[in-house]
């Protein structure tokens, strides 16, 4: 699939999920698109849309290295509840981005790319350079950790959700 400016909002969303910060996301996004434009001018255009996300991932990870690093396996996990969708509905995109950007990589990249709902499984595996089992493990544990965080942050009582507080 060719990359056009119509694909760029998804690229920005990816940067935002990876960094959890609008300014950092903008920086990673702009640098990636500029690099693509430079390569195109030099008759070496990006081969496909995956290139944009690989490039942006590297930039986001580099920006993330400047802050505190998360360690794997530090979060509690919980089974996905039937009211999870309602709990999630109480969140803002910024809260979600903060949570994902705090995850250790490659789980962070896996969650960000997966929830863009943009790629096939084959594309995801190619982007992340991992096997299906590893990707599945990253996403499953991410879900359970997020549910645990949801339970601690956004309480759920039947059909109504109760926001226990801001993160």
């Amino acid at each position: 699939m060719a990359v056009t400016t119509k694909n760029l909002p998804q690229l920005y969303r990816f940067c935002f999920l990876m960094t959890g910060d609008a300014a950092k996301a903008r920086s990673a996004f702009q640098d990636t698109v500029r690099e693509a434009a430079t390569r195109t001018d030099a008759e070496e255009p990006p081969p496909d849309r995956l290139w944009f996300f690989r490039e942006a991932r590297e930039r986001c990870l580099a920006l993330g290295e400047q802050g505190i690093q998360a360690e794997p396996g530090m979060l509690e996990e919980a089974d996905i509840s039937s009211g999870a969708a309602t709990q999630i509905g109480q969140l803002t995109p910024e809260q979600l981005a903060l949570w994902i950007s705090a995850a250790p990589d490659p789980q962070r990249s896996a969650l960000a790319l997966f929830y863009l709902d943009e790629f096939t499984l084959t594309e995801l595996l190619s982007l992340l350079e991992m096997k299906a089992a590893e990707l599945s493990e990253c996403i499953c544990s991410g879900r359970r950790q997020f549910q645990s965080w949801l339970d601690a942050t956004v309480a759920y009582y039947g059909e109504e959700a109760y926001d226990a507080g801001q993160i």
Partner: protein
Amino acid sequence: MPDKSELLLGCAPITEKPGMDRAMRVAINHARHGKKAATFGHQQAFDAAIAKLVRDIPVDEQLAEWFAHEKLIPVARRGWKKIVRNPVVIAIAIALLVIGAVTAYRVYEHLNDFPGADKARRLLTVAASNRSVLLDPLQTNAAALSDLFFMKHRLEHYDVPAEFADFKTLGSRVFDDDEVRRVAQIWAKEKRMQFFLFPAEPDKEGKVNDFSDWRFVELEGWTGAVTQRNGVCFMAVVRGGEKDLRAYLEKKKQ
């Protein structure tokens, strides 16, 4: 340890896209109709809710201008070199080349065809399979056989053209062929050449149009030079190419 379908379900797509892997489709189908339907349903609802939240990520106005700037990422055009190196293009080009060559050969083969060319080719097969012992021995000039054919077999205008009239003969015969009808065959000493005389083929309108020039037919290494006079075709046959016969025809012209 989770099995393969459980692993696949872990990263089941949020919205099903075209070209989804068959194993993934099967795993999803089983999950939806199996014991874990409720758990999988919760997972799908969970994923869909997060995906919706991701779609709601705001993009500031300053950045939105980048999306509208169509020339920011020029559409990469595929260079002609890349197109030419594509195996599919190469395969199609080779196929077209072969079809073109075969068609050109067939067109060339029939370019100088004349009514009776098929008969002439049939007689080339006769020439290829014949031995001189099958013919009645007769040593004379080829021209002298015209009288023999007329007197003995009542074959009118079965004349050997001037180009080959002086050739010494080894033998001759007259035979009936299912398609060619009455055929007179002469075996010459010169290069083991054979001559055939046979009735001309009328054209589509039923007319027999004579031609005084020489027209060539080829079949499996044998070549015949044909001329048609008075409703009778004469064909000189030699094993070899057109140039082997042309030498005799041009010699006579000089």
